[in-house]
């Protein structure tokens, strides 16, 4: 058979979502000759459609469906209807991501063993280690064109990086460079070199940044074995009396509902939508939702310890020029409990344009304290702080009892409380970030609170034992053999690193496993 596929074709593998996990998995399955349908809730906006303008771009690609928040995290106060800053479009959040591609470290895969019994944390070791993922990391870095791997040179440092680097050197940090980035420093794989446009978050208009939209899905579609159906929002996963999944119910652009039959279903809607979909698929046979015999679906929601430090100088920086995140200090990524917390964090260059700087610098602030900061916009440098946060069972995606989305499905509530370890790490990171800039003459620094979550992790976590999580070491649900999870919700713990590279590596590995299972007749 070849794409497009019939609704009643039950030989296809259905992948829900087209981001780092789903877009990569769907493409890899097609490359192996497996008939695959990706159902993407959002529309298809190609490279030329992206907009260098923060609010219009936000309206173009963001996931803005009904969501609610609860808990003591500041995002619930500042952005109560927007817990996450992620994408609803073909390519998912790989259209929006900044490109930082870093491997999880060995000690982070064994967080429970290495960090011990942290009170209040539901830490668990991953059922896999760095060794299991290394060949897939190698593969992912090559196909994504990650700088400083495979002989690819680093990106040139922009003004914002030069300030960071000078401060890092003064402070004695040893590992500061322009990062391992899935953004071409030279033309490669049919995609051009970075033009230093400065709108990485708004969809790269030069195509230099890897995304599933521009690098994976077109290769998959070329095989004739991949159909990407956009504006197809999956509402429920269906199953038969044996407990195997049989297909999915989805709504098209006009709200009309269809059932796409499937041989297997792979859920890759991100760590908010994936558990929500499993919960919204509850049936008489599975009253607590699909794959939820452990009760762990939606639990252990992680969003990384985050924060930013901006600093004003007496001379201009123009940080907005060039690659947004091509700059990193890695010295704090170690596990060194003498700092007062377990796990580590990265410091990465970051810039926002004036519209988003106003919204995010100090949400809710007004008056001269705020405007005198904005007046220094072109004299500012900035960095993002991203580190490992503690999984907590009470941090969870649940179905809202009354709020519904546009299709009448229960909306997700995102509950999050910072763990004391997260708070201690953020304090340390704010202090070190400010020190980097103070070392090179900052006149004022701004410890900026977390933005709506971009790294959403852990809500269908991978576990050795079925009772501790939702999926096994292949991302296959413990309960239902032809139901998989293929996104960051698999993460057992968050680690300090930006998660996309690991999501891609896991998807490549899962594609191998699904192909083997199909070949052996197990699937």
């Amino acid at each position, binding site marked *: 058979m070849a794409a497009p596929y019939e609704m009643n074709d039950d030989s296809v593998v259905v992948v829900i979502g087209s981001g780092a996990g789903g877009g990569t998995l769907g493409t890899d399955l097609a490359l192996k000759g497996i008939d695959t349908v990706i159902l993407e809730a959002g529309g298809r906006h190609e490279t030329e459609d992206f907009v260098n303008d923060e609010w219009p771009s936000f309206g173009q690609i963001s996931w803005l469906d009904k969501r609610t928040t609860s808990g003591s995290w500041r995002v619930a106060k500042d952005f109560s209807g927007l817990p996450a800053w992620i994408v609803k479009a073909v390519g998912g959040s790989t259209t929006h991501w900044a490109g930082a591609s870093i491997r999880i470290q060995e000690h982070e895969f064994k967080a429970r063993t290495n960090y011990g019994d942290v009170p209040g944390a539901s830490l668990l070791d991953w059922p896999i280690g760095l060794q299991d993922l290394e060949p897939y990391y190698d593969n992912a870095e090559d196909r994504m064109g990650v700088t400083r791997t495979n002989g690819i040179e680093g990106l040139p440092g*922009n003004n914002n990086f030069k300030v960071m680097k000078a401060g890092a050197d003064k402070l004695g940090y040893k590992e500061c460079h322009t990062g391992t980035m899935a953004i071409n420093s030279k033309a490669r794989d049919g995609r051009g070199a970075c033009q230093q446009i400065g709108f990485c978050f708004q969809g790269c208009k030069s195509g230099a940044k890897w995304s599933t939209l521009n690098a994976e899905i077109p290769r998959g579609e070329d095989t004739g074995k991949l159909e990407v159906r956009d504006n197809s929002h999956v509402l429920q996963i269906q199953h038969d009396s044996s407990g195997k999944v049989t297909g999915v119910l989805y709504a098209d652009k006009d709200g009309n509902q269809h059932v796409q039959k499937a041989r297997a279903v792979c859920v890759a809607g991100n760590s908010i939508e994936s558990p929500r979909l499993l919960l919204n698929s509850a049936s008489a046979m599975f009253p607590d939702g699909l794959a939820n015999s452990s009760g762990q679906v939606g639990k252990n929601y992680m969003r990384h310890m985050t924060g930013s430090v901006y600093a004003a100088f007496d001379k201009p920086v123009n940080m907005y020029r060039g690659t947004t995140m091509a700059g990193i200090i890695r010295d704090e990524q170690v596990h060194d409990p003498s700092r007062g917390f377990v796990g580590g964090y990265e410091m990465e260059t970051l810039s926002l344009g004036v*519209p988003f700087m106003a919204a995010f610098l100090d949400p809710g602030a*007004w*008056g001269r304290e705020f405007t005198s900061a904005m007046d220094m*916009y072109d004299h500012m440098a900035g960095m993002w702080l991203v580190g490992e946060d503690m999984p907590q069972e009470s941090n969870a995606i649940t179905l809202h009892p009354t709020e519904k989305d546009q299709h009448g499905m229960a909306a997700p509530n995102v509950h999050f409380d910072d763990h004391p370890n997260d708070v201690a790490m953020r304090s340390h990171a704010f202090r070190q970030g400010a020190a980097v800039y103070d070392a090179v003459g900052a006149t004022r620094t701004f410890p900026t609170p977390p933005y709506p979550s971009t790294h959403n992790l852990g809500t269908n976590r991978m576990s050795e034992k079925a009772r501790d999580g939702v999926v096994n070491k292949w991302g296959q649900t413990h309960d239902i053999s032809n139901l998989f999870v293929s996104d960051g919700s698999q993460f057992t713990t968050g680690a300090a690193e930006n998660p996309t590279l690991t999501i891609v590596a896991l998807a490549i590995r899962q594609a191998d496993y699904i192909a083997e299972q199909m070949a052996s007749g197990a699937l």
Partner: protein
Amino acid sequence: MRVIDKRPSVSRRTFLRTSTAASAGIVALSVSGGTLMGAKGAWALDVKNLKPETMQTLVQMARDTYPHDRFSDAIYVKAVGGYDDQAGSDAVLKALLEDGVTTLDGMANGAHGGRYVDVGWEIDRVALLRSISDGAFFQKIRGDLVVSIYNQPEVWQRLGYEGESASKGGYINRGFDDIDWI
């Protein structure tokens, strides 16, 4: 290092009209106390659905909430000007704005013996705003202003932000790494 000329590049006179329909009157906002003196004759705004005095107060509130002394009044007028059209079709919003301004003016009268826009010092006006800052009226205005002010290209230029760059080839040949003092 390529730096941005932050001086206003548009003509001094800006007309902002929120409606093409016949208006209740063009407000020539020249008030005592000096707060809007710089704007005299520099802009005009048709006000159809709100009271002209209400719009005048909203403009002053906008400046007091996000005060940038290098921004012309036209920027603040543009930021709140859209409320007049919205008030035409949204009675709840209209009541929120009219009642909010009435309350604010009442407080100003009690403390200083005049309307809000007549209070001479910013610090005194800001003190009034602080006392209503948890209420729905101020929260609505502030939440809208943080977008409607900072989303204006004129503001970007004043702050040294260049905006869209892809059509100009990005910054690869236009100063992405031209910092010369670090």
